[in-house]
């Protein structure tokens, strides 16, 4: 192993009353891929902010190329060759890929006008995209690119800065399996070229696949540093939560009953051609797997009435539903927990109580006026039942962690009388502990007789939670698997379009 060019020595960071980082050391050698894992709030973000010069450590030393310093500014971090690929990509959708790479550093023409030299910009961008094996033109507007392609734009930006260390924060959370493989290949190429990577992820299989070394943080402390041979999801989970996570998934208590949610010949604008047929039975969790873009979210949105179906029927408990809007769906007992939690699931600025009561205000009102005591009582009841961790039900949902926000979305529906609930990526961006609680709730719901359709791109989750798995490919169901036939390989084969 070559000498490290960057070292963090005994870094500590305390905010008033909180120790965010405590005596954390990390060294980065050229061409090394370091996995960084830990539950939400373990200190990963703070550590990365220290590396990026956004936060200054309270104690400790940062050693860059043998030079010791107490802290870095953002400019110094960039000069040291540290670049970020953020979870929420920071790109300008209205500009093209090349322009995004050189944003703020555009080559200018000579002469008094100093206009942007588009020819030189394009010439400088081309080799970067080529190196990454990009399958799109640098002149393509970012708005037209997929999430995976946008990531490549961010990575190209990092390369154009001659970065020696690229920090990737949850880079695969919105990628399909093939896209993830391609990203892991890009990481391999970068490593071969001597670029170091810090790979932050909740997807432990991917961390295992690409890391040379894994650092596990818990409560602001480094609790383990695993060498290549020691890396495994089980080992990481053990260190992350400080104990073994036994049987995350509970089996159903009873055999499923009659079909509750039946979707027949459903067509959406995105996939008008083949109809989708799905039936979810009473007490059953039907996993809906597939690659991103297979049409799963579109189907869920259409069934729920966001963009109504262009064809086909939805039956709930034996009755044909006429759904023109979510309002109609909710009135009939069909609910959706959307994929985009912050955008569609909750109103961040409103209080927990106001979010929970939103779909059923009419029930809580007398003559059009909201009974606020009843509302608060309902919310407190739900918060206790779902173990929502918050100082009170009157705090804005935006102040909660991702897991607790998701519980608020669940609380909304559980306080009503669901017949069927569609969950779209129910645990995306949620830490291990909260995930487990959500799985428990899913199972408890199913056991109480609710039909659950769970869309998920997390293979482990689909296989662990579902009673049956339907797999979607390009707008149609390519196959359905029963529990004994569950395997990643089987799901994957269907997801890429092999029919059963």
């Amino acid at each position, binding site marked *: 192993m070559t000498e490290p060019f960057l070292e963090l020595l005994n870094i500590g960071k305390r*905010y*008033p*009353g*909180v120790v965010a980082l405590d005596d954390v050391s990390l060294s980065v050698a050229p061409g090394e891929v370091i996995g960084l894992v830990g539950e939400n709030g373990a200190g990963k973000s703070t550590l990365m902010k220290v590396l990026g010069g956004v936060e200054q450590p309270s104690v400790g030393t940062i050693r860059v190329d043998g030079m010791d310093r107490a802290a870095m500014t953002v400019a110094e971090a960039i000069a040291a060759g540290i670049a970020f690929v953020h979870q929420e990509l920071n790109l300008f959708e209205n500009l093209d890929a090349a322009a995004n790479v050189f944003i703020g550093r555009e080559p200018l023409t000579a002469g008094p006008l100093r206009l942007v030299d588009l020819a030189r910009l394009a010439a400088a961008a081309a080799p970067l995209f080529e190196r990454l094996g990009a399958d799109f033109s640098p002149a393509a507007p970012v708005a037209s690119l997929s999430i995976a392609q946008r990531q490549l734009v961010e990575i190209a930006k990092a390369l154009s800065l001659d970065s020696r260390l690229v920090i990737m924060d949850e880079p695969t959370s919105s990628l399909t399996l093939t896209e993830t493989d391609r990203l892991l290949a890009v990481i391999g190429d970068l490593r071969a070229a001597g670029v170091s990577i810090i790979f932050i992820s909740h997807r432990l299989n991917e961390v295992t696949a690409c890391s040379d070394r894994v650092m596990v943080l818990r409560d602001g402390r480094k609790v383990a540093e695993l060498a290549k041979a020691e890396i495994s999801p089980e080992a990481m989970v053990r260190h992350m939560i400080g104990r073994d996570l036994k049987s995350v998934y509970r089996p159903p208590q009873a055999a499923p009953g009659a079909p509750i949610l039946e979707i027949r010949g459903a067509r959406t604008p995105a996939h008008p051609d083949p109809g989708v047929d799905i039936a979810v039975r009473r007490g059953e969790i039907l996993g809906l797997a597939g690659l991103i873009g297979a049409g799963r979210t579109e189907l869920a949105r259409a069934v*729920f009435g*966001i963009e109504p179906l262009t064809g086909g029927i939805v039956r709930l408990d034996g009755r044909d539903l006429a759904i023109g*809007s*979510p*309002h109609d*769906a*909710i*009135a009939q007992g069909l609910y*959706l927990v*959307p994929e*985009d939690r912050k*955008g*569609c*699931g*909750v*109103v*961040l*600025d*409103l209080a927990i109580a*106001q*979010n929970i*009561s*939103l*779909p059923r*205000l*009419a029930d809580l*009102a007398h003559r*059009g*006026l*909201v009974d606020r005591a009843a509302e608060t009582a309902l919310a407190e009841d739900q918060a206790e039942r779902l173990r929502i961790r918050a100082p009170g039900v009157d705090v804005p949902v935006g102040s909660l962690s991702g897991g607790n926000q998701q519980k608020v979305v669940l609380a*909304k529906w559980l306080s009503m009388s669901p017949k069927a609930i569609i969950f779209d990526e129910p645990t995306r961006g949620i830490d291990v502990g909260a995930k487990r609680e959500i799985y428990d709730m899913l199972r408890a719901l199913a056991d109480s007789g609710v039909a659950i359709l769970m869309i998920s791109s997390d293979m482990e989750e689909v296989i662990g939670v579902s009673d049956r798995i339907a797999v979607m490919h390009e707008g149609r169901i390519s196959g359905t698997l029963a529990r004994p036939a569950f395997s990643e390989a089987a799901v994957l084969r269907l997801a890429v379009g092999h029919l059963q």
Partner: protein
Amino acid sequence: MQKKDLGLLVLILAVGAIVAIINPRFLSPINLANTANLVGLFGIFAIGQGFVIITGGIELSVGSVIALLGVLFIDLIVTHAMPWPFAFLLMLAGGVLIGLAHGLLVTRMNMQPFIVTLCGLLIYRGVARFYTADATAGFGFGVSFPTLEWLATGRSFGVPHSFLAMLAITAVMWVVLHRSVYGRHLYAVGKNEEAARYSGVPTGRVIVTAYVICGVLTAIAAIFFAMYTRSISPASHGGFYELYAIAAAVLGGFSLRGGEGSIIGVVLGAVLLQVLQNLVNLLGIPSSLNFAVMGSVILIGVLVDQQFGEYRRRRAAQQRQ
């Protein structure tokens, strides 16, 4: 009352106290009554504007609607001898219709509120001028409507009826916005329309209703204004009034991004604007500076409010840690 509203009230009292010290006539019954009358007139449609602003929209046609409906009202009762209660209801229906049209264009046709209502501003003004052939509509010599005049411009116990009307509307609208299911839906839509839709809130209907409320309140204001000025020159009547309404809402703590604001806030905003107008008159400031004074106060007010809010947030965050 929210903290923000309290701050505004303190500002109004402070400005009032200063004006009263410099010119004691500020507190004379006649001046107070006049100011109260104007507060009532402007407050009524500012409340309507507030509802639209909470949806994240804006209603620019308020001034033109006041001109158009005012002209129509006077014409109907004077020239066509229509019984005034009937004309009044007809004007309310006109307000509903205008609000409905704006709301449907915004929600069904996905047009931006600024564009829809800007076009409304131009259209209604044009129609008003065409309708009277640019002539001033007014009450001819000897024409009088004693009941209507008493209701619209009279006083009870020295308090102008326009002000009393505004108080009544304030009370009703306070309940609607702050206690009703509709009000809750309105805030949810203003904060995050998508999430509201996913929670089953009929977002389109909520937004359209806000424009209709604005239309109706503007129609009521239009009739008060018509009776107050008694003659309407359609080219200038109600000019810039939409901006008074927006200014009142902004002073009252509304965010143009939607989802924020209170009825007390917008009413106090309307009060402050009229006190400022009064200040310009009473302190002998050239009336040409009227708008400049108003603009400066709004600018400084919002600036201070935001900086103070930021400071409070930071302190609260520190205390938590």
